[in-house]
């Protein structure tokens, strides 16, 4: 019995170790790992409740991964990708505007003369909304492009789903 158990254990070890072998195309670089991760997270709210038919403002909270920044909604340099929010309005919901905060001034250490407008840490968007009575799912998508002090990552999107309950 002990032999059988030992055999099974040994086989399991070997299987687990062989399955964990790194394959040639599995890039373990930190940049690759970062590239596969979401660099901006939608924090909250996931659900809001407010009176039907009355204009409301919802604060949407986001956090940017540490050490990174993203362009603000109004980048200063031509060609930079602005942070934007696209929303799908379900029937019975009207999004009248989204306010973006002003960016902070930033310059890459290697190019201190070029001033950029960025967000870092946490930031809040203000969504102005009116909804008819009922439950609605507002599906937004935040598009951003992140960099650290020497590297930039391709533009990405993060889903912003909000369950809207209007009473």
């Amino acid at each position, binding site marked *: 019995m002990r032999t059988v158990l030992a055999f099974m254990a*040994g086989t399991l070890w070997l299987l687990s170790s062989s399955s964990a072998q790194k394959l040639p195309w599995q890039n373990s*670089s930190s*940049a690759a790992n*970062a590239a596969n991760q979401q660099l901006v997270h939608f924090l909250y709210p996931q659900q809001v409740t407010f009176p039907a038919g009355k204009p409301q403002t919802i604060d949407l909270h986001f956090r940017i991964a540490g*050490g990174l920044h993203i362009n603000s909604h109004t980048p200063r*340099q031509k060609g*930079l990708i602005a942070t934007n929010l696209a929303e799908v309005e379900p029937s019975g919901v009207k999004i009248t505007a989204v306010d973006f905060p002003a960016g902070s001034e930033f310059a890459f250490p290697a*190019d201190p003369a*070029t001033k950029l407008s960025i967000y870092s840490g946490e930031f809040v968007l203000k969504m102005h909304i009116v909804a008819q009575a009922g439950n609605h799912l507002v599906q937004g998508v935040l598009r951003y492009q992140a960099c650290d002090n020497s590297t930039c990552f391709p533009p990405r999107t993060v889903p912003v789903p909000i369950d809207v309950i209007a009473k």
Partner: protein
Amino acid sequence: MIAALALMIAAGVMNYRQRRREEQARNQAVQMRLVPTNGDATAGTVDDTNQGDSIAANEAAYTSPLNGKQAPSFTLQDLSGKQVSLSSYKGRPLIVDFWATWCEPCKVEIPWFEKLHDQYAKDGLEILGVSTDDLDRGDPAKLFTQKRDISEFVTRMHMNYPILLSAESVEDQYHIDATPTTFFIDRNGRIVASTVGLASRDEIEADIRKAIGGANS
């Protein structure tokens, strides 16, 4: 039989320990990569710690899995629509630089490449800039605008070397996850050095010398 089983178990344990060490090293690399310099009071997760200097250090320490290997072959379109193959550069030292118009650190590096291109022209140095800007190939109007934007950038930056339009397959082959990413290729088509993120001009020049086959190679 018992000896064989014991051997198998021992091998399994050794492999497991090795795997754990690799995992730990990899996790440490991720932490170093994603966290920044100046402390953010909101930091609460691994991704949000502040170690910007570590990021730079980690990027500097990054070694492409392609280093020492033959550069993967590719054929890409240039801005005029002409097909350009890597193989046509064999026999010459070559820099392949993946960049984008939205990449500010790339704008720091590009003027250095222009000057170094001139400086090492006598050694046959060639540079290929590969734009990783998104292209809507299925939408002719958008594609036209996107190519025009790249062309304008190239003109504005006075880029004096061929600019190619990237393809996902090529970015996969070269493990391009961020820009700038630069490969230094010798006359035999072998990648002798690579950098991810903005490197110093001195580092770039040292890597060019490796590609040329001069000092420090």
